[in-house]
């Protein structure tokens, strides 16, 4: 399958989902369908107390993902801690000694290769997409590219999981997921995220969650809301963001 079709299909999997959990599950299912892998899961790891499996393509993938938390080791935890893709193409190979206990358990389920790709939000990795394969060996170029795309898209349901404020009717019927992601990855959004961090004393990821939830509730893009914040046209109260009449006095 050509890369453009993979990209479109991955994007569509997230766009139509009714809830963040459904979006994560569908993205994992799409990975199995489109990439040369037998299972996929998405974990949420915020570095603090919250961590766990968030989406999966099937029960086995969910079990494999949860094993990493049970043993407290594994490629998805390493991918988040080291902020980079972790590849284990030969789990039963002689050189593979990174996660001894976990590796035995995973091999017991008939899986011989794992690839973990970090999922980042607001410049911070908060999770990972894991791809599992029964046969050993590296991912081919198309599958690796597709995995990186899927890990990028996984940021959207992950952001939405972090809030109960998102209006799902509007979010599901909004713009395509690639456009939504593009709207989040912009300089003005980064700057506005920092302003929310200062105003509400929250983490950057939480700040971006709130920015996105506000954008969805007003049918605006994240970029639109970011410029409102930079121009001091939005009062950033903890509960309710409202517009001021201060107008565009402009900073960037």
């Amino acid at each position, binding site marked *: 399958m050509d890369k453009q079709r993979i990209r479109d299909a991955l994007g569509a999997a997230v766009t139509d989902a009714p809830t963040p959990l459904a979006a994560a599950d569908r993205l994992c299912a799409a990975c199995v369908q489109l990439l040369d892998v037998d299972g996929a899961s998405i974990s949420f790891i915020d570095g603090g107390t919250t961590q766990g499996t968030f989406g999966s393509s099937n029960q086995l993938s969910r079990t494999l993902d949860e094993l990493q938390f049970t043993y407290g080791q594994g490629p998805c935890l390493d991918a988040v801690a080291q902020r980079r893709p972790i590849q284990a193409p030969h789990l039963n190979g002689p050189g593979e000694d990174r996660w001894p206990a976990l590796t035995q358990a995973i091999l017991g389920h008939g899986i011989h290769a794992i690839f973990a790709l970090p999922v980042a939000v607001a*410049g911070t990795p908060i999770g990972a997409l894991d791809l599992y394969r029964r046969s050993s060996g590296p991912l081919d170029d198309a599958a690796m590219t597709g995995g*990186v795309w899927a890990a990028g898209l996984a940021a959207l349901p992950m952001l939405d999981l972090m809030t109960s404020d998102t209006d799902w009717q509007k979010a599901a019927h909004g713009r395509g997921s690639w456009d939504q992601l593009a709207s989040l990855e912009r300089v003005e959004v980064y*700057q506005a995220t920092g*302003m929310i961090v*200062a105003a509400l004393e929250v983490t950057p990821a939480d700040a971006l969650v709130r920015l996105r939830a506000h954008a969805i509730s007003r049918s605006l893009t994240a970029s639109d809301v970011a410029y409102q914040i930079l121009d001091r046209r939005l009062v950033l109260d903890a509960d309710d963001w409202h517009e001021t009449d201060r107008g565009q006095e402009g*900073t*960037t």
Partner: protein
Amino acid sequence: MSAREDDIVASFVSMSGSLAQGQDVNELLTQLAADCARLLDVSAVGLLLADPRGALHVVAASSDRVADLEAFQAQRAQGPCHTCYLDGQPVNVPDLAAAAARWPEFAAVAAKAGVASVHAVPMRLRDAIVGALNLFGATPGSLNEADLRLAQALADVATVALIQDRAAADRNLVNEQLQNALDSRVILEQAKGVLSYSGDLDMPAAYAALRQYARDHNIKLTELASALVNRAVPAALVLDHARTRDAGAA
């Protein structure tokens, strides 16, 4: 030597010194963009770096104007800079109005910024293209051969600065360093936002306060930025320092 040649030499000497001292890569690239705009007499310069998904991101710009930033960012997935990144060849658009049909969305955003001509040179690392250096001109016209060579030399310096590990022959390691540069740009912009909100400053003033504190305390810009956005260092500390320095200078 002409005054311009002196200026070019001074700029390269300053950059190589900064590289040797391990100066923060974001600060170096921002300086490089500013030098490039001045040396080539163009209205704005942006350095755009590709993420692993192939989307271009602004990692440094000579201009803080919203309109310029919008025009750089409009090239995430289309535009002269994106074409340059894909093909690995310089792209010269001496008259953007005449070439608008090729990149209609970019041309509309660029027109709002008063951009009349666009040039882009690739950022090359051996056989890979990692991004592009993008030049905006306020009037139509081509850069001459010497200017294009200078632009390419500056793009090469930027790439060297990004991939600081000489042993980074491994493609994975290179990707990691590029990802770090992209992540640290995100955190730097967030830190500017923190200072801007806390001190009611505009973004250039917030950046100046950040740089001042980092310099005077011998901390890397990215480390300070990260501490600010994670609230390990209070914004007031950095803001008070900037005020004290300003008062001292006055």
